[in-house]
């Protein structure tokens, strides 16, 4: 152990002696790790947000399709579903999207009640009558509103409607609260000019989540024009979308990683005459090949670990402090139409470990392997230099 500590100490001093070369490698290495880690952090956080949204959502959402398009669901579609064994409740939901051209954001307008258990009022109270709304934290931040303020929206008839904010709510997920406005159901129907015997979709709760797929089949059997969507299907879709996008980015970043490896290899293999001479001297004064290789290993480990840590911290800062400004448009996709929101920090340690293995290991190999040749040099050559 003492020997290894001393070799590590010598390795660090050795790195400092070649500041220029090692600093340039460290900077490039750090940026490469930061890019890759940013993609991982952002993807993981978005998946985490999606999971949180769905955890509070219904087990099954039933939509109606007409000519392959999403249509409003007649309220009486709930009756045959309620009769299915295993169904706990069926709740018609009234909701829709609203584009605010002034703020250039997409908002989700939803009629109460809508999974009230996942919505926690931070301030004020739920809207109970016409011209009253409750908003998510993201909207309050985007518009600079608070409880008691008013929000102007244009209804389906093109009329301006002024709504008073009675409450501010929050959930565990920013994805949900960020763009959501809650209306009394009757008021929202009037706003969207939606018939009273129809709903946007039906939220179905079941006793046993394992039976969702079977129940979905039964719903489709009884209501052939329906489209039942299970919670896991939605999660799978989120996963696919985010993984596809992050995969694309990682593929592009991989090119950067390969370029870095080539650079590292080039730097490492280009052992200068001074470095060769130093290895020869070390061997002549009693170091053996394993000592020299251990020295090179510590040098490689020190550079790669520092770069990995700096890169990870940089990625964390970029993703969670600066909102992943450089990558969000690519991975979120719809972010340009969505109010800004803070990502909940979420790190998959396994992914981080894999990233570490993919960046630290090749660099150490790039450092140690080329030194092998110099390390097996006969110390006798130093006598003749």
């Amino acid at each position: 152990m003492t020997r290894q500590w001393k070799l590590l100490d010598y390795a660090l001093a050795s790195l400092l002696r070649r500041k220029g070369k090692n600093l340039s490698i460290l900077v490039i290495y750090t940026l490469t790790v930061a890019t890759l880690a940013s993609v991982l952090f952002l993807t993981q956080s978005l998946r985490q947000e999606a999971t949180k949204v769905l955890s509070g959502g219904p087990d099954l959402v039933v939509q109606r399709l007409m000519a392959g398009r999403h249509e409003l669901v007649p309220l009486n579609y709930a009756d045959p579903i309620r009769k299915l064994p295993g169904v706990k409740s069926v709740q018609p939901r009234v909701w829709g999207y609203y584009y605010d051209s002034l703020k250039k954001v997409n908002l989700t307008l939803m009629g109460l009640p809508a999974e009230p258990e996942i919505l926690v009022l931070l301030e004020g109270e739920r809207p109970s009558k016409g011209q009253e709304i409750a908003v998510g934290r993201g909207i309050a931040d985007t518009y600079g509103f608070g409880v008691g303020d008013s929000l102007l929206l244009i209804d389906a008839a093109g009329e301006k409607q002024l709504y008073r904010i009675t409450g501010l709510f929050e959930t565990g997920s920013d994805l949900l609260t960020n763009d959501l406005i809650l209306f009394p159901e009757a008021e929202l129907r009037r706003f969207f000019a939606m018939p009273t015997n129809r709903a946007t979709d039906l939220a179905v709760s079941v006793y046993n989540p394992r039976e969702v797929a079977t129940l979905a089949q039964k719903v489709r059997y009884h209501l052939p024009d329906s489209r039942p969507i299970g919670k896991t299907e939605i999660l799978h879709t989120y996963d696919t979308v985010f993984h596809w996008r992050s995969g694309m980015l990682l593929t592009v970043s991989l090119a950067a990683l390969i370029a870095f490896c080539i650079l590292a290899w080039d730097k490492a293999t280009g052992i200068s005459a001074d470095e060769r001479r130093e290895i020869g001297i070390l061997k002549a004064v009693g170091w053996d090949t394993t000592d020299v290789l251990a020295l090179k290993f510590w040098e490689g480990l020190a550079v790669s670990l520092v770069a990995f840590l700096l890169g990870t911290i940089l990625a964390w800062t970029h993703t969670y402090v600066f909102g992943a400004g450089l990558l969000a448009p690519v991975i979120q996709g719809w972010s340009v139409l969505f109010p800004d929101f803070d990502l909940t920090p979420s790190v998959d340690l396994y992914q981080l470990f894999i990233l570490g293995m993919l960046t630290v290991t090749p660099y150490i190999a790039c450092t140690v392997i080329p030194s092998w040749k110099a390390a097996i040099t006969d110390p006798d050559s130093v006598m003749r230099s």
Partner: protein
Amino acid sequence: MTPLIQIDQVSQTFNRHQPDEVQALRDVSLDLQTGETTVLTGPSGSGKTSLLSLIGCMARPTSGRVHLEQREVTRLPERFLAEVRRENFGFVFQQFNLLRDLTVTDNILLPLTPTSLPAREMRNRAEEVLERFDLTRRATLKVRQLSGGEQQRVAIARALINRPRVLIADEPTAHLDHALAEGLMELLSSLKTDGTTLILASHDPFVIDHPLIDRRVQLHDGALA
């Protein structure tokens, strides 16, 4: 009396079977006793450095054997050979071979770095040799900031830090003026007094004829003359 080092019919050939093959040593046999001071003499290219390398376990002979205290070291694996080298020999190279960007202390401590000797013991030994070679005030300077004579003292201090039984010096006065050469020989005399076996290679008459020398071994064209 059992010799400390036994060289038994050693030959050394470089670039074997190549057009530029060089036979550096031919069937050299030599016994070196403990505490003895030996100088290898001969013109340039006579094989002095090659023989020093073999004695100091820095190279392996093409044929023949080298024994250290009756133990054959010729066929030892590289790792053990390095250990033998570290524990028994100190080297002073013709060009000093110091790491110019390291401090005097760091250079001196190089042979002890890959050992399990505690850091405190290393510091004590460094202080001891620094004082002995009057380098204490130079301890934190980079080697490139030192004069030639000081660099040579650092090289000798480094060679002695592991308390070797044998000090090997190749052309130790090659880069020194007469005064510095005299100082060096005085230093070597004190080492001899302490019981260190000295093996030098030189073609400098000042060294060859110095009273310190017990034995002169003449080499010519890779063979003992």
